[in-house]
């Protein structure tokens, strides 16, 4: 530290700090209340996803992907499964795709609620915790019905879903779509024109359009800065082109825009889910592809081809042709990319996850300089840093 530095106060927002929304450490240099320098340390939740995925079979990686962005685990499953399916040319049937879209949007809503609830609580708007966590609870009940677990779903497989949703799912989904939007409308009503909220968030943590792209911002944080980029529109996957929805854009790139973009995206997600449920096709949920999908039980037991197929898939795993490719989907925080290198065998050679949070988080050190400590909580809350995705 230089002579000048001793005039400054050093404040450590350590990894066990509730405001940081995860295990992050931010070391601040303060001049009174104003931040003049910041340095972030991450990696407290590094669980070596990429190294572990090299030891698993291709389908064995799926539970690991759940734990990337644990607030919206199915979206990670989807990103990974689409990466492998597109490379192998596997077409998931319409019902499988529709259910994937439905649950994907459900998880997007969950993730945005997880950002909004605690983020608004950090600003002092305590009621929103309940208002955002109640639709989460309703959503988790529905997810549990389909996937078997609430948080880490592992519901998707390469080629489709694990199993079809239960018979009661559609009616419960309709109930959910009737009840849950009200809570988010209430949140919006509480904050959108709230004088205190506007004062705390307008023109705080501004990122302009050019900077957002140079940093690699994607998702709501980029759209709040005016970057009109949504993968569901630009390069649709899993049948998104069939649904009618809008992509909200901000203009200012401040904390206010980031929260409002998320609120509006939740509304659009409800719209997509309603369209899916109204027009849910019948049929199988997994592709009829012997390279990746286990044959139905009666074929395994009553035909030699089914038995051999089952045996090979269980013992050798899915064999993915050799090559390198990059696949990307619109996760809740932005572009979740998988750069995959395959050696043609049953285990991935290299999987690089491009986490949306990583690009967003690196900007925080520069963004908070010049603001006060209270603004720091607003900025960090609006960026939606999920440590699981950041550190993998």
């Amino acid at each position: 530290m230089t002579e000048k530095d001793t005039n400054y106060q050093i404040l450590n927002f350590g990894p066990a700090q509730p405001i940081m929304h995860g295990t992050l450490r931010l070391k601040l240099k303060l001049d009174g209340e104003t931040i003049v320098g910041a340095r972030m340390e991450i990696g407290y939740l590094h669980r070596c996803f990429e190294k572990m995925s090299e030891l698993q079979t291709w389908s064995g990686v799926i539970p690991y992907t759940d734990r990337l962005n644990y607030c919206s685990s199915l979206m990670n499953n989807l990103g990974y499964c689409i990466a492998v399916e597109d490379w192998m040319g596997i077409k998931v049937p319409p019902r499988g795709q529709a259910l994937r879209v439905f649950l994907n949007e459900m998880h997007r809503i969950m993730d945005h609620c997880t950002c909004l609830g605690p983020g608004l609580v950090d600003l002092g708007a305590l009621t929103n915790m309940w208002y955002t966590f109640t639709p989460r609870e309703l959503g988790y009940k529905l997810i549990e019905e389909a996937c078997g677990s609430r948080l880490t779903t592992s519901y998707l497989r390469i080629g489709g879903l694990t199993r079809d949703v239960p018979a009661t799912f559609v009616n419960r989904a309709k109930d959910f779509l009737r009840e849950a939007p009200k809570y988010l409308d209430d949140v919006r009503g509480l904050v959108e024109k709230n004088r205190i909220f506007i004062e705390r968030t307008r023109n705080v943590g501004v990122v302009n359009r050019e900077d957002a792209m140079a940093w690699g911002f994607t998702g709501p944080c980029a759209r709040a800065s005016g970057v009109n980029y949504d993968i569901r529109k630009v390069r649709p996957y899993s049948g998104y082109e069939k649904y009618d929805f809008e992509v909200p854009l901000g203009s200012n790139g401040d904390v206010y825009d980031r929260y409002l973009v998320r609120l509006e995206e939740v509304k659009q997600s409800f719209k997509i889910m309603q369209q899916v449920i109204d027009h849910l096709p019948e049929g199988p949920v997994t592709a009829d592809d012997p390279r990746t999908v286990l044959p139905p039980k009666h074929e395994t037991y009553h035909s030699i081809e089914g038995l051999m197929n089952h045996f090979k898939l269980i013992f050798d795993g899915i064999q993915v042709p050799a090559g390198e490719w990059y696949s990307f989907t619109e996760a809740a925080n932005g572009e979740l990319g998988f750069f995959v290198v395959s050696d043609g065998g049953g285990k991935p050679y290299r999987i690089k996850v491009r986490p949306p949070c990583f690009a967003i988080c690196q900007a925080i050190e520069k963004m908070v300089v010049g603001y006060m400590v209270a603004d720091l909580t607003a900025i960090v809350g609006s960026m939606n840093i999920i440590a699981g995705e950041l550190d993998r």
Partner: protein
Amino acid sequence: MAEGNVTLQKLKTQYPDEIIEADARPGDASIALKKGKIVDICRFLRDDSDLLYRYFIDICGVDYLELRKKPRFAVVYHLFSLDKKHRIRLKVPIEESDLIIDSVVDVWRGADWFEREAFDMFGIRFNNHPFLHRILTHHQFVGHPLRKDYPPEQRHPCTEPWDLDFD
């Protein structure tokens, strides 16, 4: 089809000696380049009016030891052009004995942490990087974990907090 070609064609015209191999796969075009002029090439990709790769997506490293490819390492860049809707992957092979490459932080600010991660995981050094330290592993970690010769069960204790510098 055309989008991969525009980028590849422009690079072939502008930097013909730097190209090792080009693959114009539709939607996922990639090009292998030499590392010497990588910063110039990236600046060209960002600023050229037909390309405008201003959207930074990803940088990572790959270890080709088990595939027995030479050179052993590669740095892979993923770029996107929002205006032209192009995507490109740049691959820069690097020898193990000369594991240094210029940083593109001055071209896209977002390269910062991604290059730190490539350093942390593979040991690839980036010239002119503002803060080239480990990012995902702790500061007392020894070795580069994503290399193929690093055992997955290896552990390193961390006994002290890291006294972070601001500059």
